């Protein structure tokens, strides 16, 4: 599915242009320690994290993840959104916890 489809399916608030929202999502990845995510996330995954500072953008771009999903309504600094927009990377925001997100995803995707 695309990032846009994931966002709609999960009721997220989406930030991103057409290029960002049309990227392909293969699976989900959860992690908050950037170095761990650098080592283990795969390209085309939607990355769920509570981290919303600007450093997540570099990690997301270098790993070529599909999008970043900021969970639990964590506040997203404007500089993070601006940088993501500049790099055509979608940021999704959800009130759900990572656990709730994945549970719901597995229920509704079928």
């Amino acid at each position, binding site marked *: 599915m695309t990032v846009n489809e994931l966002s709609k399916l999960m009721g997220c608030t989406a930030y991103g242009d057409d290029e960002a929202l049309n990227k392909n999502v293969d699976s989900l990845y959860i992690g908050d320690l950037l170095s761990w995510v650098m*080592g283990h996330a795969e390209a085309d995954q939607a990355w769920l994290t509570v981290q919303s500072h600007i450093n997540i953008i570099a990690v997301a771009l270098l*790993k070529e993840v599909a999008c970043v999903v900021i969970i639990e309504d964590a506040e997203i600094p404007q500089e993070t959104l601006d940088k993501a927009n500049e790099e055509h990377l979608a940021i999704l925001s959800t009130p759900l916890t990572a656990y709730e997100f994945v549970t719901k995803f597995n229920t509704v995707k079928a």
Partner: protein
Amino acid sequence: MTLIDKYNVVADSFTTAGKISSKIKDILKQLGVPSDKLRKISVACYEAEINMIIHSDGGDISLFIDDENGMVYLHFDDVGPGIPDIEQAMVPGWSTASEKAREFGFGAGMGLVNIKRVSDNFDITSSSEGTHLKVGFQL
């Protein structure tokens, strides 16, 4: 071996971390390096860049290409306190990162481990004057 470019890393520059790694990734992409290799090189470069930001007093990242042997090399040379015990630093999860670094999501203690895992050549030396890390990738 040809030096393609050299970049300066500023200590404590947390908010621009990854900038140099992105630049190097762009250059290698333009040179036609395949995307799976590109991701590996990016992981190593980002981790080492972060290490320099967190732990050193600043330094340089140099990008080399060895056409004859089909290799990409990255050299990370910093000035700073160095790594007192490299063997300990290579243990997954071991970290001496500051509270400030941890607030930014760093300090998982996976940096050097990740770099070694993705690279084909890994050479590190360190003294109380600084650390020199050389990593190579077979294309």
